């Protein structure tokens, strides 16, 4: 039987399997799947893994996730307050960095795997590896050095520090976040993660002007990637668009997988990547809440027709909002399996 891993590997190599790989990121749906409150659910890594496996078995897409929620990274760096919500993702409620002095005090754990906040993460990874390892790509989410501070001090304060300075605490924080990033990548790889989603809204020209990107974002991206290597790494800007920078990111870092924004033109992205990597076309999943079956099918068809010719293409979602009806998840996936089939003429 062809597995999700087979499909992914084939797509990366530019070969054919039965269909294109389909990634569906059901994260916030976990507590509902297990019939638990978010607090109960996220307290036990086995639940998180179990929910991933169950949902994947039911829907048949190719990947599973070790991500609990993005704010988890802040917990590893001292955040003690998380705001839970039954209908959406947990959020950082209190920022670790309130004054610039807190940056000095910020401690990056020497060994993440020994940190209590990582223990459940490890349990989750172990279960995923045991049940799905080698068959389904196991995904992990990792914030870039430049993005992590947004969760430690809030986007507002971080933009202020980033753009206006002072330089000293800014550089100190970036250096600490880079240190954390490197350790995190290692911990996830050791734990069995195959796909490492390198999340960096600051790598998008929706967020910063091109000039700033070239002078500041890009050097930090190069530094991050040089420190951990490109294996399994995916360029992703938190659903912000980045077609304009693909060429230079590719040239400078060698990154081989690009998880576009729904706001990016897929055909254009693919043209820029030009066979040098895997193009991932990403659906605007916020619209899946209200779209009907026909609209969903038409959109999936449009996307796949734009990206699939010539191979090296993956169909994916963002972090699927909780409110998407189950029937719409199915409609999207069925369309992706159907239109993404490799026939002899495709």
């Amino acid at each position, binding site marked *: 039987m062809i597995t999700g891993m087979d499909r992914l590997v084939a797509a990366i190599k530019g070969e054919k399997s039965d269909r294109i790989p389909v990634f569906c990121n059901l994260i916030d749906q976990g507590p509902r799947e297990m019939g638990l409150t978010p607090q109960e659910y996220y307290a036990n890594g086995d639940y998180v893994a179990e929910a991933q496996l169950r949902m994947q078995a039911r829907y048949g897409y190719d990947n599973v996730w070790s991500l609990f929620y993005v704010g988890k990274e802040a917990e590893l760096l001292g955040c003690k307050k998380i*705001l839970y*919500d039954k*209908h*959406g*993702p947990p*959020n*950082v*409620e209190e920022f670790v960095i309130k004054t610039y002095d807190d940056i000095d005090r910020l401690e990056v754990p020497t060994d993440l795997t020994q940190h209590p906040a990582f223990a459940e993460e490890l349990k989750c990874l172990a279960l995923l590896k045991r049940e799905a390892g080698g068959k389904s790509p196991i995904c992990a989410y990792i914030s870039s050095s430049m993005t992590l501070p947004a969760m430690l001090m*809030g*986007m*507002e304060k971080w*933009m202020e520090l980033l*753009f*206006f300075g002072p330089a000293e605490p800014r550089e100190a924080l970036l250096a600490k976040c880079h240190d954390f990033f490197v350790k995190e990548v290692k911990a996830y790889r050791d734990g069995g993660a195959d796909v490492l989603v390198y999340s960096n809204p600051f790598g998008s*020209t*929706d*967020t*910063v*002007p091109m*000039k*700033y990107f070239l002078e500041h974002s890009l050097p930090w991206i190069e530094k991050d990637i040089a420190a951990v290597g490109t294996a399994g790494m995916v360029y992703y800007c938190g*659903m912000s668009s980045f077609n304009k920078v693909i060429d230079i990111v590719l040239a400078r870092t060698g990154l081989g997988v690009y998880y576009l924004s*729904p706001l990016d033109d897929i055909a254009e992205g693919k043209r820029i990547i030009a066979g040098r990597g895997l193009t991932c076309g990403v659906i*605007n999943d*916020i*619209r899946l*809440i*209200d779209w009907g079956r026909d609209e969903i099918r038409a959109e999936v068809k449009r996307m796949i027709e734009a990206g699939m010719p010539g191979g090296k293409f993956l169909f994916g979602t963002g972090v699927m*909002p*909780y*409110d998407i009806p189950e029937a719409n998840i199915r409609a999207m996936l069925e369309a992706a399996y159907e239109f993404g089939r490799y026939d002899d003429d495709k």
Partner: protein
Amino acid sequence: MLDKIIKEYNEAIYDTDRDRALMVVHQAVEQGVSPEDVVFKVVLPALDLMVKAISENMDANLAQHFMTAQIADTVTAEMIAKFKKVPAVVGTVVIGTAQGDMHSLGKRIVIGCLKARMIDVTDLGVNVTPEHFVDEAVGRKAQVIGISAMMVHTARGENGSLAVRRLLQERGLEDKIRIIVGGAPFRFDDGLYRTVQADAWASDGVTASKVVADLVKEVRQ
């Protein structure tokens, strides 16, 4: 001379160079340009120019909005302090992020742009209950309630715009107060503001200031 100042100011804004923008403005005042002219002939037209640029190509980034709001806010506050007489308030707005939502950046940008248009705006903070939105709007005689939400569940949920609408209905305030919403989910779904029963939305702070000014006019008529 004003033409040159306008040009230099606009360039500084475009390059998101706060220091240069402030320098241009300070030099203008030193050279005898009135603080009133700085605001009404330089800062505000620059905002309008950006609204136009955005509506034509969407090619403005977050950093630019952030800077524009910061600069416009700072310059306006500085200049108003030097005005000969207190400027007329164009309208009154209360703004906050929806209950359950801690994301404050979008709101802050909107506030900066509103202030530059002489709109009196009160920041209700983050994680604001629907009752608090309405009570504050009534207490401050606001024409507009602004609700910011960065996540789908806070944008669409029972405690956001939908609840504020219900309260306005219950209290018979619908012809006195308008609701405007904004934040990431609205940008990914431009019809969402209707689903959550708001009167309007805006994709960014610069545009928001224009739309809010229009809503104020509507209510005041």
